């Protein structure tokens, strides 16, 4: 090789080393979490968009950005009468070699219920109590697929609100109230006062989170949620109303029972376990048997079976879908008041199990009570 070529070759790495690195500017984030959420929705894969829409919709609702919340809920959730059809993503979710999370996100029943519950709150805020009731009824129906009869359609607040709207619209709300009271057990629910015109929806704490269970992650199990607040007190002028807990989301999530999809995941898990077991049993003896010429053929065959088993076992994806609508609360609560038309300042205190006010969690809400319609507010402690 000529000396010139050698010098050139040596110089090339040096030049490459001197190359200015590509500077990637950190993305600019704003303090507007809803706007940032919308950016994430735009960037999310199609199968996860609904999940992000739900998370951001709830964020928008908490920030009283009702129009945005409504638009996001509408985009995230199929219509009340929709049948969730199969498509290429659901076929992929059922296939041996793709996880369940390949399918488009529509959530587990407790998440679907919460979506319809929030839609109902938004309809009521918009002055459409009968459409709100429709949403509460659809929300309750989402829970009707629970495996055990006693856990089906057992959300207390949904029946309570169904009856309350019915009573306010001049219908009989007693059967819905009785259903709610039956599910509430020993907790005495407040009687309806049809002249109440301020509805306060409250939620406390952090809701349940899904995680993988079973031998190979083929089951969904729940990490329970948490809330320091166990009730809330609403003070407006001289009035004070205590709002008890109506529903516990961890309970609702955990009592759903088996899913039809679980059978598919169990089959996948079975294939994975058989593959892995075959791999474990056949590979090592196969290697040993290939050592001797007399047993080499048998050894190679065993090794082949073992490696094939390992390959199949390693490729099968039995994992359950653990994507979670993770900004849901642990508890739902509600209270209603009667206030004259005009502007009122309300103070909402969150109380622990002993009835003590939790420090630094007070919320101040301005109520603009209008004549001839309900004023609906939504308050979260987190």
């Amino acid at each position: 090789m000529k000396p010139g070529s050698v010098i050139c070759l040596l110089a090339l790495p040096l030049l490459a080393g001197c190359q200015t690195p590509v500077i990637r500017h950190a993305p600019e984030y704003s303090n507007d979490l809803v706007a940032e959420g919308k950016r994430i929705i735009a960037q999310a894969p199609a199968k996860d968009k609904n999940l992000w829409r739900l998370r951001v919709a709830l964020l928008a609702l908490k920030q009283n950005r009702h129009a945005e919340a409504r638009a996001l809920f509408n985009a995230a959730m199929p219509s009340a009468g929709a049948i969730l059809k199969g498509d290429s993503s659901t076929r992929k979710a059922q296939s041996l070699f793709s996880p369940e999370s390949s399918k488009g996100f529509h959530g587990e029943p407790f998440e679907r219920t919460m979506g319809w519950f929030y839609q109902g709150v938004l309809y009521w805020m918009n002055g459409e109590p009968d459409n709100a009731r429709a949403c509460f009824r659809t929300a309750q129906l989402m829970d009707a697929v629970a495996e055990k009869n006693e856990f089906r359609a057992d959300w207390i607040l949904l029946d309570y609100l169904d009856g309350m709207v019915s009573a306010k619209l001049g219908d009989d709300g007693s059967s819905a109230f009785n259903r709610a009271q039956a599910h509430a057990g020993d907790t005495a629910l407040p009687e309806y006062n049809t002249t109440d015109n301020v509805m306060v929806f409250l939620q406390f704490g952090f809701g349940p989170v899904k995680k993988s269970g079973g031998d190979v992650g083929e089951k969904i199990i729940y990490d329970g949620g948490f809330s320091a607040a166990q009730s809330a007190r609403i003070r407006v002028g001289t009035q004070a109303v205590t709002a008890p807990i109506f529903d516990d989301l961890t309970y609702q999530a955990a009592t759903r029972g088996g899913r039809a999809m679980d059978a598919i995941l169990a089959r996948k898990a079975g294939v994975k376990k058989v593959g892995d077991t075959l791999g474990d049993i056949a590979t090592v003896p196969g290697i040993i048997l290939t050592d001797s010429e007399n047993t080499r053929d048998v050894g190679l065959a065993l090794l082949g079976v073992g490696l094939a088993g390992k390959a199949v076992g390693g490729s099968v994806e039995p994992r359950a879908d653990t994507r979670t609508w993770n900004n849901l609360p642990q508890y739902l609560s509600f209270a209603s008041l009667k206030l004259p038309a005009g502007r009122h300042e309300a103070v909402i205190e969150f109380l622990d199990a002993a009835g003590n006010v939790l420090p630094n969690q007070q919320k101040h809400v301005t109520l603009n009570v209008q004549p001839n319609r309900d004023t609906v507010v939504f308050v979260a402690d987190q």
Partner: protein
Amino acid sequence: MKYTITTFIAACLLGTMACMNINSPNGPSVTEMRADERGFVAGLGIESQDLVTIAEKMARGILGAEQIANAQGKPNIVLEPIVNKTRFPISKDIFLTRIRVALTSQAKNKMNFLSRDRIDALEKERDLKLAGEVTGGEKIKANQFKGADFILTGTFEGISGRGQSGASDYVLYTFQLLDPNTSDILWEGFHEIKKQGKDDVTYR
């Protein structure tokens, strides 16, 4: 021979196009349909084909009602919002609007509809005229807002079920023509629809 092959390929292409179902999700991305057709995204809820069928049926029923058929002059009708007791949030005005449109087109000026849903705007305009802030106040001699001869309203009720085996929804649509002077129900029509379906196994 050359023409035979060309003709064969052309026939195959035409055949393939003819076999494409417009209701198939794998078909064209956007398909214009009649409002009374059931599309491939149909569900258990209240849908456009229900709206059209019910509105046409109710309009025929109302026109056949004795009080409307034998009315002297043009009766004034007010549409009152529908009461929704189903589990489906709906735009309530759309049903009555569709019935009004069907009645207007079928009745050919035999009835008059009063715009009570715009009463605030109408009152505001009248008050501006009476105050002389806009022209036309001199033409108003007294309260000229008409009273209703009939009130048309409706109620939607439903029975819904859902379980591991699927979901079903029954909706009963009832419409009444009321006499506001006597509260008599002069005419009543109904339509009922039951639908059932099942989510894909991955969502059950």
